[in-house]
């Protein structure tokens, strides 16, 4: 809850987002819209084979057409990891700008640039590549067998060579307490295996980049990216360019869901072409290329949980296997967070996590909304329902007894990022959710007959807000902001933070407005690039408002102190006695002393005075590391209707409650929850990104036609989606705010699984729960039942 005395004028108000108009009118300029003088166009040659040695690349025909070509021979022989969020000792480096060997269909082998798109396409088709095709490995179990073709012999970990055995990229075991003892003292122990799929991010915009050479030998880059600073640092490292000669611009992004957390593979390719040719070059990928570029980490999770007859968890054991595809982008971090989300869902006196991440010849996995959380939560929340059933305790009650809440330890990013929970809206979320969905009236699981069967299920979860913690961990986490007051009392906020489309930058402006007492429409968000901003790690881990906003808040406090100092000089009142408040009629912030209200000056007048008196600028730059990683809790309650003849599932209603601390912008927060439902129901029921075993190609071949995501028609009507927010205040966040974005989707698939269990009495352990799987499970369940009768 926001403390009573805090009267907020900007935070908590539903306001239009500042980039909204540009977006809906088409005026916004994304990377693909950028056109520069004398700009050339590039295309990338991608491997048609999942696993092949590259014997020879013949560029002579393409060059004869006037194209500039780039192959492995041209690029610096530096292995890198495209995501530099982990600290250097935890960076697994296994890729080059252009591949030394094709490890998945769609791997970039060579690139061409030419004056027009058509000429580039023609040049691309003139490249000749000779491959020596190797065994395709699509199954992670097979990948680990003795004698399976190695996808890598060695990679680099930090600065050290690391040899890769049995295609295992990384393993992690994390153990706390004595699980044997815990299981021995359990009244009920349940164990199940769960599988989640490698879905495509399906962000609206495919990846692109424009690179311009500068006359001083530097480059300017307009990329699709979630972190301009990380892109700059990696480019500097790969191409040995000093950082002050690399300017990476922030370009509006058409959604990411995590797909641009790394420096996208096309960025260094485009830069390589620019450096070789001296031309300004644009490289935009097609949807098919993009579908072969990244997927969510899949998981096979074997989970065992024990509980006492009073419904208290005793111990847990999780085995996790992830098929990471052809590159290790953040497998180490993935295993860390998988264990961390699990450890933070419910209090486990003893736990053991054993995780393996294995290379295969498939599209590389990378973080996607929730990073390991939807996977872990699907397994845990499914098994929690089963345990509650076995114990005869209401599933919600069972959760309340065991969840990690106020005062508990939360793992925000694996074992090295932990902090104490300071705000907890879980009881409110669960109580209100039950009431809104009509929990007590739900059917007895599996009791229904007839063609259409309904079920109500719930699941809860969270996401972290940022990856900050009291001590440095395996992840980098801090942000910085530069704020200046202009000579008319408006404000420029210069922040490297990326807005994925959720309105993060709008929230930053509201936070600054709130602190400065200036109307939020007087706060501008400046275009950002790496030359003029201080470091921000990346917009991920639901850290935008909490961590990025925290840094802006810190800088705003400092600016406010400077403002009051100058005001004190002008008004002859002690600094501490002054306040700033927005004046609606003036449309300005006004500084005054409540005891002497006639002593007042607008921020604009003061700023102008500072200029005309040559006192100096009112500005501050600050950097902030949050030392907490507060859980942004979410609870889902869904009602489904199954057509048992076809297996089709309709969402009748969804109730989604969020504890995001103080709600910064209610409309956008609701949008996050509705979006989380849409992504979550796709993950739960629809999206099945499968690979052909022999060829290593996507069954959808990279086309939307069969690479299905849910459409509007799958969504319940807006009036059937009930969203609400817990009355909650996070003491460590800006004005009490935490995160929301990833939390919004995390428990969704589990809630569907539990609702389907309620409707059909069948436990689904594999995602997506397609109509076909439902029909097959019902047939199996019925024949099982008949058999039982026969016996």
């Amino acid at each position, binding site marked *: 809850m926001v403390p009573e005395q805090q009267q907020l004028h900007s935070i908590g108000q539903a306001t239009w987002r500042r980039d909204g108009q540009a977006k809906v009118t088409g005026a916004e300029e994304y990377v693909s819209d950028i056109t520069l003088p004398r700009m050339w166009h590039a295309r990338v040659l991608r491997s048609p084979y999942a696993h092949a040695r590259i014997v020879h690349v013949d560029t002579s025909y393409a060059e004869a057409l006037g194209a500039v070509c780039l192959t492995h021979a041209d690029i610096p022989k530096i292995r890198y990891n495209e995501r530099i969020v982990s600290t250097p000792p935890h960076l697994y480096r296994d890729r080059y700008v252009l591949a030394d060997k094709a490890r998945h269909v769609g791997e970039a082998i060579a690139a061409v640039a030419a004056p027009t*798109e058509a000429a580039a396409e023609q040049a691309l088709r003139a490249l000749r590549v000779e491959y020596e095709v190797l065994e395709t490995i699509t199954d992670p179990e097979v990948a680990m067998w003795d004698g399976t073709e190695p996808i890598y012999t060695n990679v680099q970990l930090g600065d050290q060579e690391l040899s890769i055995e049995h295609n295992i990229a990384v393993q992690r075991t994390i153990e706390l307490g004595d699980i044997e003892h815990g299981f021995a003292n359990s009244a009920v122990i349940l164990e199940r295996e769960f599988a989640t799929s490698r879905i495509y991010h399906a962000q609206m915009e495919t990846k692109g980049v424009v690179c311009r050479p500068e006359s001083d030998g530097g480059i300017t880059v307009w990329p699709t990216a979630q972190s301009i600073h990380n892109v700059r640092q990696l480019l500097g490292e790969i191409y040995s360019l000093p950082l002050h000669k690399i300017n990476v611009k922030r370009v509006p992004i058409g959604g990411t869901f995590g797909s641009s957390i790394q420096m996208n593979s096309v960025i260094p390719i485009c830069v390589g072409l620019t450096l070789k040719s001296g031309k300004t070059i644009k490289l935009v990928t097609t949807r098919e290329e993009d579908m072969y570029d990244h997927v969510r980490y899949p998981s096979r999770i074997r989970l065992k949980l024990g509980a006492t007859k009073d419904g208290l968890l005793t111990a847990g054991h999780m085995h996790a296997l992830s098929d990471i595809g052809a590159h290790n982008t953040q497998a180490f971090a993935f295993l860390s967070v998988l264990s961390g989300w699990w450890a933070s869902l419910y209090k486990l006196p003893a736990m053991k996590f054993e995780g393996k991440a294995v290379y295969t010849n498939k599209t590389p996995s990378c973080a996607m909304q929730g990073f390991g959380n939807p996977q872990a939560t699907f397994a845990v929340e499914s098994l929690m329902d089963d345990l509650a059933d076995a114990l005869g305790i209401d599933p919600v009650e069972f959760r309340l007894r065991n969840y990690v809440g106020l005062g508990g330890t939360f793992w925000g990013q694996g074992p090295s990022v932990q902090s104490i929970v300071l705000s907890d809206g879980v009881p409110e979320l669960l109580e209100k959710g039950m009431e809104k969905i009509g929990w007590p009236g739900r059917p007895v699981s599996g009791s229904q007959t007839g063609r259409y069967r309904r079920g109500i299920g719930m699941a809860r979860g969270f996401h972290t807000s940022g990856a900050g913690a009291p001590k440095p961990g395996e992840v980098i986490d801090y942000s910085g902001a530069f704020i200046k007051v202009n000579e008319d009392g408006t404000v420029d906020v210069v922040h490297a933070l990326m807005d994925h489309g959720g309105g993060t930058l709008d929230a930053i402006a509201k936070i600054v407005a709130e602190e400065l007492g200036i109307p939020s429409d007087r706060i501008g968000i400046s275009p950002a690039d790496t030359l003029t901003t201080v470091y921000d790690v990346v917009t991920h881990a639901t850290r935008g408002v909490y961590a990025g906003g925290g840094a802006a808040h810190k800088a705003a406090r400092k600016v406010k102190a400077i403002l009051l100092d100058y005001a004190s000089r002008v008004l002859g009142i002690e600094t501490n006695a002054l306040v700033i408040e927005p004046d609606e009629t003036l449309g300005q912030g006004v500084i005054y002393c409540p005891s002497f209200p006639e002593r007042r000056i607008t921020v604009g007048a003061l700023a102008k005075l500072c200029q005309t008196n040559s006192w100096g600028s009112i500005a501050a730059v600050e950097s902030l590391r949050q030392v907490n990683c507060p859980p942004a809790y979410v609870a889902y309650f869904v009602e489904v209707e199954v057509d048992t*003849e*076809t297996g089709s599932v309709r969402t009748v209603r969804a109730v989604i409650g969020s504890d995001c601390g103080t709600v910064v912008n209610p409309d956008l927060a609701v949008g996050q929850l509705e979006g989380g439902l849409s992504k979550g129901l796709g993950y739960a029921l629809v999206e099945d990104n499968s690979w052909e075993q022999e060829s290593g190609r996507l069954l*959808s071949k990279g086309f939307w036609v*069969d690479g*299905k995501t849910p*459409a509007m*028609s*799958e969504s319940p009507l807006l009036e059937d989606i009930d969203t609400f927010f817990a009355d909650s205040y996070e003491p460590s966040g800006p004005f009490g705010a935490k995160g929301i974005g990833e939390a919004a989707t995390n428990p969704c698939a589990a809630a569907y699984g539990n609702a389907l269990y309620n409707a059909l009495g069948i436990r689904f352990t594999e995602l997506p729960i397609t109509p076909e799987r439902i029909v097959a499970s019902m047939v199996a369940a019925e024949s099982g039942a008949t058999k039982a009768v026969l016996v």
Partner: protein
Amino acid sequence: MLPQTDYVKASSVAHALDMLHQYGTGAAILAGGTDLIVDMRERRREPTMLVDISSVEELAEIDVGTGNIRIGAGVTVAGLAGSAIVQHQLPLVTEVTRHFADYLTRNRATIGGNLANASPGADLVPPLLALNASVVLATAQGERTVDLNDFLVGPRRTLLLWNELVRAIHIPTPVPRGQAYEKLGLRTGGAIAVVSCAVSMDQAGGECRRVRIGLGAVAPRAFRSSEAEQIMEGHMFSSDIAARAAEAAANSSQPISDVRGSAEYRHAMVRALVERALHAAYERSSEPQE
């Protein structure tokens, strides 16, 4: 990117046919382009000349003739959806348009393109088979009319000659009143059919007459299940007979397993959808004639 090609906008059927004749096998008719452009982008087809018929008005008409309803090959799916004639007499087709692609595609995709493309999953084919449609084909020399059933030779293969175009689709009248359509895709909108089925029938005092059952996406081409039709034809409608016909329809299909579904699932779904469509068609056939 699209392969380079020449382009001409035809002003009339005669002009289009003339262009086809002039440019020979390198020419391709471009109607809505929602199949052709996709194919070109994938280089499955690389025509050297596109003859665009999308502005030919004489192809965009729907009218009622003597003994038939005539739909121009250039009528778009959105055009079908908005046509009062179709809504009134061919509710089956109106129903299909609701399940066809998305609004953007419906505005471009034509009925002629759907038939000429001859995809096993083309949504308009099963209903048109169930409505006993025939296809009017034209060359510069003249016209011929063939049964839709004969027109479709196999997957992506038709009777069309290189210099010929589909001019119109004719549906004989009176059209059976009992019409029903079922489509199952990987999602409710904008999806290719996993199974689709169309039924039309009349009845006389509960006895099923002129029963026609068209099935899509469960064989190399859309087809009519004569086995299932025979079970219904001339018999009193009952749940039992509908179930038997549905079973026969499933057995007459030859589905494959692909990214959209396994052969077993498709087989089971033919049964479920046909049964459902038979019930719905029968109920509608009971509606009094106007």
